[in-house]
């Protein structure tokens, strides 16, 4: 009895070799983590970290209750923030639509020259955050909401462009073929076969980006690009934490409302 038990191999999910490889992989991950941790905390001043609970207590004590009377001076910046987001989204759309048609493999006029350029522009715009764009534009255009609008626009190009060109590539070929078969010109094919197919997606993407832009434009003021972030920066630099907490509540409220609006609109369209 015991002999058969000893002979019967125990079932294992993996062979010894793969198990060893998985262990080695985990070990490498842990080693990398420890090494990265050492490098990252090289310049950390631990006294501040240990002090954090006291600091947090102090900060919260100063932040609450919020200074409700301050709301009067927030309404105008809030309007600016909305404008930055909306006009920035429009600017992004204006630039992204032609780029998307150049980047989609089924509508691009030149596959080897224009398409890679359009794809590069889309990736470049997506990899730089709107705050960095704003930082750059504020140093060029001076502080104000114009810098914010352009920053939001430049960042939106990549997002809208990428999603839109993917939608264009996924259009139904048969509808395009049907319109082509009537002897339509290139422009007519675009207008009657491709645009109707991508239009709902396009509206959906735009509203979605608008919603994201509301969040982003709320903080652009930190680098001087107008909107409610300017007030946030001003309140923080005088350590008026009860104003900061009110501003954060206002931002949170705006974000919730814009998310609700965008969800409603997208639901109605799609």
């Amino acid at each position: 009895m015991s002999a058969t038990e000893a002979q019967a191999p125990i079932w294992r999910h993996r062979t010894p070799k793969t198990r060893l490889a998985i262990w080695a992989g985990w070990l490498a991950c842990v080693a990398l983590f420890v090494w990265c941790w050492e490098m990252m905390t090289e310049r950390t001043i631990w006294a501040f970290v240990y002090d954090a609970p006291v600091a947090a207590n102090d900060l919260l004590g100063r932040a609450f209750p919020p200074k409700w009377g301050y709301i009067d001076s927030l309404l105008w910046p809030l309007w600016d923030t909305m404008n930055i987001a909306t006009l920035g989204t429009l600017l992004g759309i204006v630039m992204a639509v032609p780029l998307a048609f150049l980047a989609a493999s089924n509508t691009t006029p030149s596959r080897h020259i224009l398409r890679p350029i359009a794809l590069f522009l889309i990736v470049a715009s997506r990899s730089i955050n709107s705050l960095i764009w704003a930082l750059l534009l504020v140093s060029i255009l001076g502080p104000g909401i114009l810098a914010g609008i352009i920053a939001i626009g430049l960042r939106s190009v990549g997002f809208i462009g990428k999603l839109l060109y993917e939608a264009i590539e996924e259009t139904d070929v048969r509808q395009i073929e049907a319109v082509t078969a009537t002897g339509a010109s290139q422009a007519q094919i675009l207008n009657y076969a491709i645009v109707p197919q991508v239009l709902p997606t396009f509206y959906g993407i735009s509203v979605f980006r608008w919603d994201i832009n509301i969040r982003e434009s709320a903080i652009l003021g930190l680098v001087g690009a107008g909107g409610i972030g300017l007030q946030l920066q001003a309140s923080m630099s005088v350590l008026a934490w009860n104003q900061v907490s009110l501003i954060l509540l206002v931002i949170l409220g705006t974000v919730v409302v814009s998310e609700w609006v965008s969800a409603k609109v997208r639901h109605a369209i799609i």
Partner: protein
Amino acid sequence: MSHMAYPTQWRRPPMMVKSRFWRIALTLGAIVYLLLAFSTIEVNYARVIEGLSRAQRFVAGFLQPDFTSRSRDIWIGIGESLTMTFTSTVVGVLISIPIGLGAARNIAPRLVYLVCRSIIAVSRSLQEIIIAIFFVALFGFGAFAGFLTLSFATIGFIGKLLAEEIEDIDEKQAEAIRATGASWVQLVNYGIQPQVMPRLIGLSLYRLDINFRESAVIGIVGAGGIGGTLNTALGRYEYDTAGAILLIIIAIVMVAEYSSGYLRRFLK
């Protein structure tokens, strides 16, 4: 007589808003809003003209980036960003796994579900920058505050998507494990983990990519990393160094995006 019945003209029916009244109302509303919005833009033309020469220098700096004269700062910034990205993704994913399990309706009790969902909601509704401001105020300047910020943001992202993935699993497999009399831990380990693991790895790689992008930004408010170096370079009007830093950021983001996309396809 009969040819009268055939229309010779065709107008495409409206594609979005069917009612004529609402079409006109929406258009008018949009025009009024745009006029109001454009009127709030204040442009100081003297400042813009002054800035144009800077723009020229920036474009020149972007075309002829200067990697060498501030190379020490750039290396420190990149090093901090990359290490911060990796450690925060690992810690964030490790924390978000139990939270994701707790936030899945089909395996967590109601109370745990509500607690975990509210943690996720808090983490998702606050912007990284705002969290970074607070962590910098609490923990001092430097990469540690950035690490905490990114970990915190990762929890909401991975936790939510993981919970949704767990809610979408094939119930039959979990049922089969339950039928063997397995405990909750065994159910998670043998019934759920194999189903969600590929997706979890994919999400973690995606978040690694996002965390690097964010690490370039939170440095602006003092949370370490390449963003701080960039902010300093722009503050000194050293556009050639700023151009170099932006090119490095774009290059790393592109490498990260392509390699994470490749890895995710490989794991599928």
